[in-house]
């Protein structure tokens, strides 16, 4: 006995349900299911009866019923009621009588076995004939009722009626055609634009115009060779590589390379604008893609090959999370782009570990990035790049089939797809798979020899007096210069020369131009004398420490000219492109930062300005990050660098991992290390007291000096702007000490006036 609140009462036990083939009678119908259709048909019939009674006051109920039954709809309803009644009686008997149920099932099994004799294809055709027959009969009945013809007569006269109705049908077709053509015209106009075709010789740029990217250029030339002579690879069972992706920082010459390809090749060149597939209306992008590839196939057949270039390919978008299973490819980019270098990337760890590390990066670097290109444009492009190879053309597909011929397979379309982007992470991984993009080349910053060549070529276009050594020096101090930045620097130098009324561009002009481009225009405001000295001393401490300790970089410029919130700075330039940094180098970097505090306290008898705050924060960050991320501290633990920064751990945020507290061992270790480095900085500065005061004087005098001038002052030789030999005299040493002592005294009394800046001995250039 079930409990009144037992919700499972009345439910069948799992597995207790009888199999249909084991039943001896039909499963009883629910009462509602038994009467629902009957009730519906009877209800409709009663409504007809009611209407008849209302309509004619003389009608009796019986006569009205008779009248309703003898109308068209009445007959139909009575027929339905009769059929439904018979069906329900049949069900009822089958539910109660085993013999009847079995007999009926046997009949059905026999019918089934009869139909099973036919193949599914024959059954489908028979069903289709039956459906068409019914449809034709129904149509003939309707048309016949209008024409007072029987359905059979209507079918017989069908062709004649069709011919009679032809003008009307054509009129309807014409109206539909007009309506459709409007849409076609609108979409046709909207799908224009964004795609330019250049024929051979239209573009003048050549491979010789691309400087500093020889390695990539050689590879691209190889692709062009295969496109020009496909037999070279196809006759040996290969295929012409169909896609090239050029990725790298902006201005490194990716587009120039593509332009050079257009100039060098004997094939048509199709340039796709970055915004070509950005559309107002849904579906236009798909039409554009299809239109583009129709054009490419046509050009390919006509000229034997074609090159298509998608500039800023990242605008093509990505499907975001939908392709997360393919993110490994993206991780390769992430590793290359991530400044947190890891030896050998992640390739030596398992895939799952690699994914975990990649996800950690993604939380910081890619968090919030959603998918785009959900309007089908990207998908259409993917399909066109490597989709179904289907027969094309109306004659090929339709006419040949009508004539009983198989359509011809599509010919080999030799289409070389080139893409350029500086955001490879934004590309859909599916687009980068082999078969679509076969080759992926990183177009990095030009090498030193490339930069020299680039400088030489751009300088060759103007009048200048730079020597080969100076050009090499320029290339050395421009490690991350691209073709675009070099071109811009040379042009800016020319502007400076023209402004000064000179015909010839000098080395100093290029240096000034480079400084201007790299660091921007100074604000032009002047310091009060006492502050000028302290700012110059601050920067001189950085410069001297850097000069004495840094062996992998040189000073680009040192300046005390204000730029916004920055009072002055010393800018280093790495001597060569490095992949990893050693602990000793991190320490030197930190010492260089700390030198400002150490120097100010050394020269100002323990006092220092707020200006050291930024330097100390940077030093703290460097040391902390080195300890947490790169095992450069007392522990062996290391965490992903970006996670460390993001978690705020560097600045004392929440511990990344339980047990690692910035207030604890790491914080103490960082403080200890900073103190050690402070002592080292102070020692270096004390040993170079005169050099610091000399550079301070030069900065106060010239505001901005080059790294070569700093070196010249420290080494006591002649620099491009400053003659360092003048600082090496005993007299000058004494003057500088006196000057600093006077400035210190003025600082101590706060309102004291500092002495005038000592003059250099005669012959010092200004």
């Amino acid at each position, binding site marked *: 006995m079930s409990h009144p609140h037992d919700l499972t009462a009345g439910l069948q036990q799992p597995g207790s349900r009888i199999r249909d083939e084991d039943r001896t009678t039909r499963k009883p119908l629910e*009462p*509602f299911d*038994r*009467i629902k259709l*009957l*009730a519906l*048909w*009877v209800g409709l*019939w*009663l409504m007809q009866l009611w209407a008849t009674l209302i*309509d*004619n*006051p*003389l*009608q*009796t109920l*019986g*006569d*009205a*019923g*008779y*009248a309703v*039954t003898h109308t068209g709809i009445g007959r139909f309803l*009575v027929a339905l*009621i*009769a059929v*439904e*009644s018979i069906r329900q009686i049949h069900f009822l008997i089958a539910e109660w009588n085993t013999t009847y149920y079995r007999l009926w099932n046997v009949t059905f099994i026999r019918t089934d076995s009869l139909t099973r004799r036919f193949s599914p294809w024959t059954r489908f055709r028979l069903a289709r004939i039956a459906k068409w027959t019914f449809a034709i009969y129904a149509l003939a009945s309707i048309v016949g009722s209008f024409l007072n013809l029987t359905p059979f007569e209507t079918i017989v006269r069908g062709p004649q009626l069709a011919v009679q109705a032809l003008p009307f049908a054509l009129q309807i077709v014409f109206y539909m055609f007009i309506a459709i053509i409007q849409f076609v015209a609108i979409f046709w106009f909207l799908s224009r634009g964004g795609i330019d075709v250049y024929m051979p010789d239209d573009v003048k740029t050549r491979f010789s115009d691309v400087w500093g990217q020889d390695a990539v250029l050689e590879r691209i030339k190889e692709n062009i060779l295969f496109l020009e002579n496909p037999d070279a690879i196809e006759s040996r069972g290969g295929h012409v590589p169909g896609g090239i992706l050029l990725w790298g920082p902006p201005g490194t010459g990716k587009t120039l390379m593509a332009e050079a390809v257009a100039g060098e090749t004997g094939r048509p060149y199709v340039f796709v604008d970055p915004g070509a597939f950005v559309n107002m209306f849904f579906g236009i992008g798909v039409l554009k893609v299809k239109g583009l590839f129709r054009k490419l196939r046509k050009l390919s057949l006509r000229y034997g090959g074609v090159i298509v270039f998608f500039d800023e390919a990242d605008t093509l978008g990505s499907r975001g999370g939908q392709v997360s299973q393919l993110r490994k490819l993206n991780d390769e980019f992430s590793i290359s782009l991530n400044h947190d270098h890891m030896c050998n990337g992640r390739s030596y760890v398992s895939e799952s570990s690699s994914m975990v590390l990649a996800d950690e990066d993604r939380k910081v670097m890619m968090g919030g990035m959603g998918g785009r290109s959900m309007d089908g444009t990207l998908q259409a492009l993917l399909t066109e790049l490597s989709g179904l190879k289907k027969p094309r053309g109306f004659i090929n597909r339709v006419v040949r089939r009508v004539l009983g011929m198989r359509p011809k397979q599509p010919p080999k379309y030799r289409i070389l797809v080139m893409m350029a982007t500086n955001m490879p992470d934004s590309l859909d991984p599916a687009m980068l798979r082999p078969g679509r993009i076969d080759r992926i080349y990183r177009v990095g910053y030009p090498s030193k020899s490339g930069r020299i060549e680039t400088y030489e070529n751009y300088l060759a276009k103007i009048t200048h007096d730079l020597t080969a050594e100076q050009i090499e020096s320029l290339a050395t101090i421009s490690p991350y210069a691209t073709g675009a930045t070099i071109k811009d620097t040379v042009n800016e130098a020319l502007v400076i020369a023209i402004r000064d009324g000179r015909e010839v561009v000098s080395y100093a002009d290029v240096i000034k131009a480079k400084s201007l481009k790299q660091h921007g225009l100074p604000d032009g405001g002047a310091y009060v004398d006492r502050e000028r000295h302290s700012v110059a001393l601050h920067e001189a401490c950085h410069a001297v420490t850097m000069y004495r300790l840094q062996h992998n970089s040189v000073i680009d410029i040192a300046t005390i000219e204000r730029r916004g919130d920055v009072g002055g700075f010393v800018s280093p330039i790495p001597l060569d492109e490095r992949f990893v940094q050693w602990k000793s180098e991190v320490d030197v970097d930190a010492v260089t930062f700390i030198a400002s505090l150490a120097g100010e306290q050394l020269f100002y008898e323990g006092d220092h300005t707020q200006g050291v705050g930024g330097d100390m924060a940077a030093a703290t960050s460097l040391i902390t990050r080195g300890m947490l991320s790169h095992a450069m501290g007392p522990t062996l633990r290391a965490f992903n660098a970006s996670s460390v920064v993001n978690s705020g751990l560097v600045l004392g945020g929440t511990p990344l991992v339980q047990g690692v507290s910035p207030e604890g061992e790491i914080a103490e270790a960082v403080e200890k290390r900073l103190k050690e480095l402070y002592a080292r900085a102070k020692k270096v500065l004390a040993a170079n007291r005169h050099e610091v005061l000399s550079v301070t004087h030069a900065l106060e005098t010239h505001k901005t000096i080059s790294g070569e001038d700093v070196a010249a002052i420290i080494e006591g030789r002649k620099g491009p702007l400053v003659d360092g030999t003048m600082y090496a005299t005993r007299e000058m040493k004494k003057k500088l000490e006196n000057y600093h002592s006077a400035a210190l005294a003025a600082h101590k009394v706060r309102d004291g006036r500092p002495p005038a800046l000592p003059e250099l001995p005669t012959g010092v250039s200004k």
Partner: protein
Amino acid sequence: MFIRTATRSAIAIAASVLLVACSVPSAHHVGSSAGGVFFNVPQNWSKVDDRLVAKAQEGWSESEAGAAILDSTVWFEVWRYSDSVSVNQALSNNVVESPVVIASVRNLLDLEKTQLTADIKNDLQDLVLPVSDAVDGDGLEVKANDRFSFSGYEGLQQTLSWDADGKTQTFRIVSLLNPARTRLISFIARCSDTCFTTHSAEIETIIKSITLKEPANVSSP
């Protein structure tokens, strides 16, 4: 319990429907909602096909008056006892040996409306057939001419005897004018004298079954 009752009711109604579908009605219930008139016709009588009637009336539109009356006709039906009477015979003055009933509803023409007087008996006498002109000649004899009122309608019952071509036929005419005096409802039952006597009971049944119902969708002019 409710489901069981409903099931039984539905089955009973379905059975009733099927029974009714197989039954035979007592009479033809004829009428027009638009015309606002209904009457019963014995089951053994038959209606003349509307298309045949319309075809027979095509000749009427040749005259201006005939065309005007056709245009103003709201409803028109012809019933006959036997198929031996053709449509043309039924709609003509020819003597028929089997009874025919012509029922119609039409709006009065503007001219007819202006000619209506207070003497409704006199007005109605000639609206269906030109009795006044023919009464003193052409062998027409008015046997009964009774005015009556019915639900605001004013009516006239006439029994006419008309000798033509050596044969006498009897007309039983009922004409009704609506209260607004804009619509005329008329019944003409006729056949030869002998035939009329034989079928007088059926004809009277038809006449007595006439029921008026103000049409909902016909606005008075």
